[in-house]
């Protein structure tokens, strides 16, 4: 059986981020104790889907500013991950790390540390969707799942 996006009965046991598949697409689940951790874990999950690897050292990286003020964390997440995809496919750069300025419920002000991709991404992720996307806050943790259009 294919589990729908966001379906996970073991959030507490889950690692900081996980990837999953729906029948046509792919996605990530992630959690964090605060918004910085949440956004960073979302980036880690996406990097695993794109490059099969987590964030790496920042030597040789250039900084690209990312500033977004939206209507909530879901809105910030979608636009943040869309910017990461844009780096990967349009600029051919991998976001290796993130330096936070400010991160909150409806805003993210950060520097994306990017480095040219040695290899193209493993898959073509075309868009970040809002499908069933709702930030859940419980037990001091925030968690969400995002489905990508592949």
């Amino acid at each position, binding site marked *: 059986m294919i589990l*729908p996006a966001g379906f996970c009965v073991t959030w507490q046991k889950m690692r900081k981020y996980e990837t999953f598949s729906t029948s046509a697409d792919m996605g990530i689940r992630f959690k964090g104790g605060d918004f910085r951790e949440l956004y960073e874990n979302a980036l880690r999950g996406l990097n695993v889907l794109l490059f099969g690897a987590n964030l790496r050292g920042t030597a040789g990286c250039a900084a690209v500013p990312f500033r977004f003020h939206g209507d909530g964390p879901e809105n910030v997440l979608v636009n943040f991950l869309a910017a990461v995809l844009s780096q990967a*496919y349009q600029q051919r750069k991998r976001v290796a790390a993130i330096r936070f300025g400010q991160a909150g419920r409806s805003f993210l002000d950060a520097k994306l540390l990017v480095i040219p991709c040695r290899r193209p991404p493993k*898959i073509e992720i*075309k*868009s970040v969707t809002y*499908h069933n*996307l709702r930030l859940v806050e419980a037990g001091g943790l925030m968690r969400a799942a995002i489905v990508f259009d592949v």
Partner: protein
Amino acid sequence: MSPVARNFEEIAPGRWRLDKNADRAMQADAEVFASRQILQQALDDASIEQVVNVACLPGLVGSSLAMPDIHYGYGFCIGGVAAFPADGGIVLPGGVGYDINCGVRLLASSIPVEEFTAAAESVGYAILQRIPTGLTPRSNYRLNKKEFQRVLSGGAREIIRNFSGAVADLDGIESGGCLPFDSPGVISPKAYERGAPQVGSLGSGNHFIEVQAVEEIYDLPAARVFGLEKSRVAVMIHTGSRGFGHQIASDYIETFRKRNLAGLKLRDPQLVYASISSAEGRNYLQALNAASNFAWANRQLLQEDIAAIFERILRLGRDKLGLRLVYDQAHNIAKFEKHEVAGRTAELLVHRKGATRAFPPGHPDVPEKYREVGQPVLIPGSMGSCSYVLRGTAMGAELTFSSSAHGAGRRLSRHQAVKLAAQSDIRERLRKNGVLVFSLSSQGLKEEIPEAYKNIDDVVAVTVASGISEKVARLRPLLVIKG
């Protein structure tokens, strides 16, 4: 799966209905065209929930529908159809999908299968060499801003007028290959940036070019009208509006959210909508037309590239090749159409996401040459299985706003498919079955193994049994170029 979704009743062969009273939020019934097995798969992968969620949208005309290739999407299920009144209704980008006017183009030819088979490998290499596939962001066509604008306004017409192609082809393209677009301002600079370099490229994922043999004819008069002859070669092209359509969809989902979020009670935020008459609704529909035109232009260019390769490799002139467009149809689109609703003609905005338009015989929007038999309906299979050509029916007009299936529909996730593909050499296995496969991405090939899809024969059997389309011909793959 909610218990509600289990309450589907079979009201006719291959037609399952969930009454709107099953769930307090439902505004209309939900109907799925499926065999018992396909329905079970849809219950298992939660796509039925998505059909129910669409039935909760305001102003839905008729039922929330799902075609026999139903599978899990985002917001809308894939294979979903929903119609809203043109006057006072809503439009939702999630009901179209990201790859706006993703669609299929079928070419018939006079080439005997044996003649092609001898040259198949060379043709495969030549297509892979000439046509950009996979992740590559650039095509062979370098369009400046003005040229790109003209493509967005003129679609396939612009390609035929200024690049190459036959004017007669336009007859065989849904909407003549062009929807009205005259508002460049409704498209973001990002969409222009992503789209302009990609006109004339195949893309990745399930997009493909397939050379096929017409293996079986079920309806000889209709096949003759469509120009399909047994044991001759046909070519199928499956691609869409590339990054351009994706960016437009993303942009307008953001716009709709900003304007409407507080006022909408949505089961899934991906189903965000706007009134058709609102500024953002009108702008989205304009942008959708531009992306549709991009996709028709894209498939037109690919057709011309393929024709040139056939000429060169098979050493035959265009006349002898007899390559001619049978039909080009969209399966991710929203269009204004007239349908009979409760005995009256109503103008509706019909959203089809992974569903094919299938107008019946006599419909004024079916090209004149096909009007007697109905619109061709193209249902591609997976790369190891056959594809089908069907035709629209009067019953389809009555039951599904003239909609039909668009493909086999995925059964396995990409992870599951890759795991399964590791057990055998997919290229070799298909070669033994007479199918040559070319792809620059072995990962992509593994994700697209035939087992990842439902059995196309089952999908077509339900489509026919429920009366929404009739079989015309079956096409067997000879050569597959995967994106």
